[in-house]
């Protein structure tokens, strides 16, 4: 199948994107609908704003059958989270209840905001951490079908108003450690408020958010809070985190997208501590919503795309596409311009080669609150946003939201990279037309066919599965990595693929974007290239492995060598 690409191997453009996407949610049997929470009536006036998060999706292979499964979180008391088992025929079966992962939204415990999967005990089965506005919840995968709540035993029963978490083996001991981001302060119980002074104290430099937490995996299913010892307890209203070895020193670093503040980069000093690096990120304070990692220009480095808010006339905070120059200049350089800078009120984003041409596309979900189309909260927001911080720190001061929309009904964006011509949005051309309030975006090859499917969790709305149909003339390769000295999920492993002039890097995802986690398997499009020269795997353990001429158009499993 050729999708309007013309006979030559010309670069993709808006008219010839080289792929199509189809909403096949219903056909796949996925009928998940997210429900937002309700909170203490003291903040009823701005509840639509405070309760506007929680739709998440993470990809896992919880039963180890080689087919990616999906886990969605819900956020209203009594509403179930959903675990969709991939049946391998293009359809899914919802099994959260039998797995013990459905009933996680209860008074006293809190409501789910997202989940990350990883093999915390290296037994070959992926375990899951659910982060909530409430208590963290850690579940051990017992047999590939059932899960056991080990939160208490693990020492993780902590109340954190969290919107994000990542697995990271920061000390390279082969065990996955846990970094949890906090949004509202952890002393706040949103259902039993003692005060309405719960909001940010600045729209640009707020530091009164919850304290992020780092837990060291001690083995035996136990974790230890090492936040202060490692120096990573940011209180900047973090909405998302991602990890990779940005400066090439062999140690995984942490990149934070903070709401109401500048991004932060914590550089890992040999597993002994983290050092907050400016790295050019302080130059403009914005409202970071998500951080996606990808090799935007095939430079062999992982760049960062951080979503922000833009609204006609009112606010152009502009998304950031930060090119990684850490190894050479010790900084990131923001090159976002034009269409890619302004996606609307942007949330989750992910890099993926949707047309298999060897260059990354970028999928961005948008839209904050879709309610009454005729009423916008932006005017009310503009009054409070310019005020002194003490005024809007008090939720009671905010103008009542009513049934107003706030950047609602915004389309998702699908950007293709045209090189020097810049990025262009081809969402409509390829069939991405929904107007839901997108939050989490996760990528996975759901049918193991060499295509990057896109799963979007929408706030208070149905989830969507967009099946990707790339130009069939293009080649591809995927890698499933199995750690031995490193964590078995291989989270944090980076793969550098070289095929002719193509030079592209990807990282095994321990959580990224916004409230999402991609397939741990790494997908590379190859375009017309019929072979791969070399693949270098940078394992979290520090081992560097080289594989030459792997077979293409299939999934290659690589196990970490013992030394």
């Amino acid at each position, binding site marked *: 199948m050729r999708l309007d690409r013309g006979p030559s191997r010309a670069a993709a453009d808006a008219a010839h994107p080289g792929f199509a996407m189809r909403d096949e949610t219903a056909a796949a049997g996925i009928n998940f609908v997210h429900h937002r929470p309700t909170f203490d009536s003291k903040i009823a006036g701005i509840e639509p704003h405070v309760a506007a998060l929680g739709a998440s999706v993470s990809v896992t292979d919880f039963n180890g059958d080689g087919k990616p499964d999906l886990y969605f979180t819900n956020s209203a008391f009594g509403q179930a989270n959903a675990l969709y088992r991939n049946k391998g025929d293009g359809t899914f079966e919802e099994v959260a209840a039998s797995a013990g992962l459905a009933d996680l939204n209860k008074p006293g415990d809190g409501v789910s905001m997202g989940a990350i999967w990883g093999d915390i005990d290296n037994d070959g089965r992926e375990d899951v951490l659910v982060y909530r506005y409430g208590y963290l919840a850690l579940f051990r995968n017992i047999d590939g079908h059932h899960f056991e709540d080990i939160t208490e035993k693990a020492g993780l029963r902590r109340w954190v108003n969290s919107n994000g978490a990542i697995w990271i083996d920061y000390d390279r001991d082969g065990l996955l450690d846990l970094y949890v981001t906090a949004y509202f302060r952890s002393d706040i119980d949103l259902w039993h408020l003692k005060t309405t002074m719960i909001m940010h104290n600045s*729209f*640009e430099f707020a530091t009164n958010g919850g304290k992020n937490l780092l837990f060291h995996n001690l083995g035996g299913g136990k974790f230890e809070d090492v936040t202060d010892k490692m120096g990573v307890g940011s209180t900047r209203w973090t909405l998302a985190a991602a990890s990779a070895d940005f400066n090439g020193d062999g140690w995984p670093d942490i990149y934070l997208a903070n709401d109401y503040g500048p991004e932060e980069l914590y550089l890992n000093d040999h597993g002994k501590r983290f050092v907050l690096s400016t790295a050019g990120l302080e130059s403009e304070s914005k409202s970071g919503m998500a951080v996606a990692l990808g090799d935007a220009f095939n430079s062999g480095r992982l760049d960062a795309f951080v979503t922000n808010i833009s609204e*006609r006339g009112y606010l152009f905070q502009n998304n950031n596409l930060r090119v990684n120059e850490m190894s050479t200049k010790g900084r990131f350089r923001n090159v976002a*311009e034009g269409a890619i800078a302004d996606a609307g009120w942007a949330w989750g984003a992910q890099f993926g080669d949707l047309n298999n041409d060897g260059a990354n596309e970028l999928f961005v979900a948008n839209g904050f609150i879709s309610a009454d189309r005729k009423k916008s909260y932006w005017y009310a927001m503009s009054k409070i946003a310019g005020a002194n911080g003490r005024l809007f720190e008090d939720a009671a001061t905010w*103008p009542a939201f009513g049934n107003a929309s706030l950047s609602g009904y915004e389309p998702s964006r699908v950007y293709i990279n045209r090189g020097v011509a810049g990025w262009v949005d081809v969402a409509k051309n390829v069939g991405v037309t929904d107007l839901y309030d997108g939050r989490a975006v996760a990528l996975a090859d759901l049918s193991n066919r060499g295509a990057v499917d896109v799963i979007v969790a929408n706030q208070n709305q149905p989830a969507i599965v967009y099946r990707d149909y790339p130009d069939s003339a293009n080649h591809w390769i995927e890698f499933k990595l199995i750690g031995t000295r490193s964590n078995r999920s291989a989270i944090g492993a980076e793969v550098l693929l070289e095929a002719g002039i193509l030079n592209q890097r990807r990282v095994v995802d321990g959580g990224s974007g916004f409230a999402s986690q991609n397939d741990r398997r790494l997908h590379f499009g190859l375009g017309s290239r019929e072979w791969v020269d070399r693949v270098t795997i940078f394992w979290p353990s520090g081992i560097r492995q080289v594989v030459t001429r792997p077979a293409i158009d299939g999934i290659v499993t690589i196990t970490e060598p013992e030394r």
Partner: protein
Amino acid sequence: MSDVTATTASDRNPLARAWQRASKIDPRYLIAFLITLVLVAAQVRYHMLGSYDRLVVALGVCMATEALLSWFDRGRVVNLLSAYISGISLTLLIKPQGGALWPFALGGFLAISSKYVLRYRENHLWNPTNFAIAALLLAAPDRVSVLSHQFGNDLTTNLVIWTFGLIIAARVGVIHITLTYVAGFLLLNGARALAFGQPLLPEIAPITGPMYQLFIFFMITDPRTVVRGRRKQIIVAVLIAVMETLIRFASDKGWPMPTAFNVAPAFFALATVGPVAKWIDLRRKRPTTN
């Protein structure tokens, strides 16, 4: 005797001496000092520029346009201080989509050229920065917004700017305009809040923000575009506050208006009331006889 004693005491007081000295300084230098202070504070503390190229473009275009048009119009290049003030103001107030520089260039050109084109009896009618921003917001709301930066919503920064602003406004002799407008804003928007049954604080909150600081210290007090006479200036300041309240009333009601009016009611109140008041003032001015 007592007069002599008072004079001596005044001479000995360093604050009084500084005040007297300041009175001899061209007001534009004081205003330029204040806006430079705002820019430096905002950049040092909040990195609000993002990149220096927008400052260079705005300043460069403003000063080049001023130099060129004044030479063409008057046969000589005038003092470029007012172009400098416009350039800094535009840098502080314009926030473009992406890293676009053209709004700073176009804004600078519009601001300065408006002084030479939109004239009546040898006077320009609009505050140059106000005109440029209003024009950009009306013409290109998809590409330009106003002051996404809020200087950290920080009380200390606000107090510094208010303190210096009030001192300089007093020295320049326009503090009555500033205070009248602020009083008018508080009263009228307080009344609006009461009338609609809305909480008071959100309605008066904008006055604590940086956009309004720039507005009350640099736009409505622009010596070249205010009307003559203290009483008339107070009346016009009240009218501007009234117009702003009307715009906000329309926004409250959701009446159809260009987005720009919802975004920057104060700027559009000045952009509509100011030139009319100035035109009437100039129209009444007795023609100079030689």
